């Protein structure tokens, strides 16, 4: 009988302890971020979709059209197209197609690149009206991008 009453008392007390904790936390500062109005900065290593880096000397891309990224990609989402330029020994990049619908953001392409021609972007809130909107031509994006 005493054990039974003790159990009821300690059980009820545990509920008050829990309530006390939640009330204490109720008056503590808010930890959440009101996302669309407040945006947290992305970490420098954040792996978004890939983007061509700009060559500071020429202002163009650094790609040497070796196709290493294309080979490294597990989901075959990269297509690199290069043209032969008259007079020059190397091929020049004409199109760099990234099918972002298939990409799993593993970063193997960036690692395999011998010329540091690709890097991760910081885009994370992408939205588009169609599937085709996610087939990016990175060369075109690089030309449109400032800086």
């Amino acid at each position: 009988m005493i054990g039974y009453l003790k159990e009821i008392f300690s059980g009820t007390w545990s509920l008050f302890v829990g309530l006390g904790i939640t009330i204490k936390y109720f008056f503590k500062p808010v930890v959440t971020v009101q996302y669309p109005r407040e945006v947290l900065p992305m970490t420098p290593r954040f792996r978004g979709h890939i983007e061509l880096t700009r060559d500071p000397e020429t202002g163009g891309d650094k790609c040497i059209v070796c196709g290493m990224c294309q080979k490294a990609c597990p989901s075959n989402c990269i297509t690199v197209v290069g043209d032969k330029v008259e007079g020059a020994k190397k091929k020049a990049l004409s199109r760099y197609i990234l099918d972002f619908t298939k990409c799993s953001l593993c970063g193997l392409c960036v690692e395999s690149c011998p010329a540091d021609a690709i890097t991760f972007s910081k885009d994370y809130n992408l939205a588009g009206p169609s599937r085709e909107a996610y087939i990016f031509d990175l060369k075109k994006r690089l030309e449109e991008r400032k800086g």
Partner: protein
Amino acid sequence: MSAFAQTQLKETFVINLGPQHPATHGVLRVKLVMDGEYIVEAEPVLGYIHRMHEKMGENRTWAQFMPNTGRMDYLHALAYNHGYVTVVERAAGIEVPERAEYIRVITAELNRISSHLLWFGAFVLDLGGFTPLLYAFDDREQILDLLESVTGSRLTYSYFRFGGVYNDIDENFVPGALAFIKRLRERLPMYHALVTKNVILRTRLEDIGFITPEMCRKYGATGPVARGSGINFDVRKHEPYSVYPEFNFDIPVYPKGDSMARYMVRMDEIEQSMRIVEQAIAKLPDGPVMAPKAPKILKPAKGDYYHAVETARGSFGIRVVSDGTNTPYRLKLRSPTFSNLSLFGEACQGMLLPDALALMGSLDLVIPEIDR
């Protein structure tokens, strides 16, 4: 088994729990034959998100399988990365620098804490308590921020590489991890006061949902499920890999076998993981994080290799068969949750439906890992 369930009533009915049900945490369907509120028979139906990870491994190079490992168990992705890189390193004979192994252990243990915190929140949510979930997510967020700054991703890290890790840790990582451990040490008593000692939770879990050691052996259950039934088995201790033998930590074992025992095992494991992280940070050596001789195009020698790691859910085994080419010949993944779920049918016979859901929650199921 209750007296009610033992009476031979002729009228039973079948209900489908899932495939879309909040208590199954994913697309798991359980076919339940019910006698009123009591379960007569339960049969988990799998395969709703089967993605052929094993077959995918056979038609891509060794390195290209890396992102897949994080997508099986998205809550403890680094342990799966760890298992895969270790078995391939053994096959190819790659030496890993010591600093890389320490970084692997630190990040994998932090990931284990984050997995247990999410389980804690989701489990209490299954039982009807919403607030602890938000507190647990607050703490988990700190770990995800730390790991994001190092690996570049919040969930599917694919951070380890054959012969080391992708990036060295940044200068904020070590102070951040220590600050997090200090913070969690202060918060754990709050969790115990709010949840563990709560009378509603105790009456829902204590002496309910028994899993016997025999059942664990029969179905091959590992991890906190087996340790909650008194089986002292942890791959980190009993088949040590990486640098785990250098750390001093305990394996929490609770012999009772009820849902509460499994709950307590995981809560204690959070503390043990914090101990490992602290010791690893104290011992963290300098040096390279990538083996200098790691080959770019990997062609492991012919052979059959197996390696198991301890994940948050149990022992994850990975067997690779190499025929000497740049793609695996066979890749077999032994996932712990598949075995842990298999005993559910036997364990929940004669239980009330809400108690069976508490038992299911205490198994810590991650469905993409069951189906692979």
